[in-house]
């Protein structure tokens, strides 16, 4: 917050975390598509999806947010993504999700078993308008499926207000 310099630890950069697993369920894909109000039949209609190049239902584009664990601060024990954030000593009390990037490699299908690894890709201090320093942490999250195929690479940028 304005006035207080960040405690974010620049030496946390490069730290890697053990893999976590996520099982993709058809009903969860449908619930997620509903929650983002996406009417595309590709995510819910097996008969329709089977006739497309995807040969079956696939997950909507932001569904991979579910792979690395939710960014839910306050849960005990901390979710995997929050644990990564905490290791940087970022002040989770003033932290916001600043940016998000997804790079897509292969579609996600019901029944897929996704393995995700996270690493602290970058840690920086940037000045606020009042000259105090805020911490900015970038986490790289890489997921692959049960065939070993790369599915997605995402970057989560967390910013201290």
């Amino acid at each position, binding site marked *: 917050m304005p006035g207080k310099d960040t405690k974010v630890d620049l030496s946390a950069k490069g730290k890697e975390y053990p893999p976590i697993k996520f099982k993709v369920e058809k009903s969860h894909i449908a*619930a997620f598509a509903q*929650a983002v109000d*996406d009417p595309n039949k590709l995510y819910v209609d097996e008969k329709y999806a089977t006739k497309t190049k995807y040969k079956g239902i696939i997950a909507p584009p*932001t569904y991979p947010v579910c792979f690395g664990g939710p960014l839910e601060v306050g849960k005990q024990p901390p979710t995997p993504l929050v644990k990564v954030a905490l290791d940087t000593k970022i002040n989770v009390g003033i932290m916001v*999700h600043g940016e998000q*990037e997804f790079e897509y490699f292969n579609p996600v299908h019901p029944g897929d078993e996704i393995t995700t690894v996270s690493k602290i890709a970058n840690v920086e201090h940037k000045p606020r308008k009042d000259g105090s320093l805020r911490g900015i942490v970038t986490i790289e999250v890489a997921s692959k499926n049960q065939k070993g195929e790369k599915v997605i690479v995402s970057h989560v940028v967390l910013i201290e207000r």
Partner: protein
Amino acid sequence: MSSQVSFDRLKVGDNLPPLTKGPLTKEWIKKYADASGDHNPIHMDDKYATAFGLPGVIAHGMLDMGFVAQHLANWAGLDGSLKRIKVRFGAIVKPGDTVTCKAKIKDKKTESGKKTLLLELWAENQKGEQVITGEAEIVF
């Protein structure tokens, strides 16, 4: 309509038809919390949100990203694939707000048979404030 025809007809500077979502409600935000697994109380509990300095519960930035991503993916249709999307979260989105997703073609290239569009994207609330800005690549 073949992908050859639709890709070829697109021009740098073209705007995509916009997509409006909402108005958002507290129940909708809770539904997204359940689907995404993120039950951070700033999305669930007004008292907690105001103690955090917010006017009340707010939508997950990722819910808004779900809107802009679907705007692009559904426009691209079965012929196109979203290759990459990067967003920055701007103004907060609250219950009662609508989110209008917009995008414009910034670049168009064909390299070794691969056709790529680079797009600038943004989303505005009903007051015209930017809630998301970003860019994306779609491959045809």
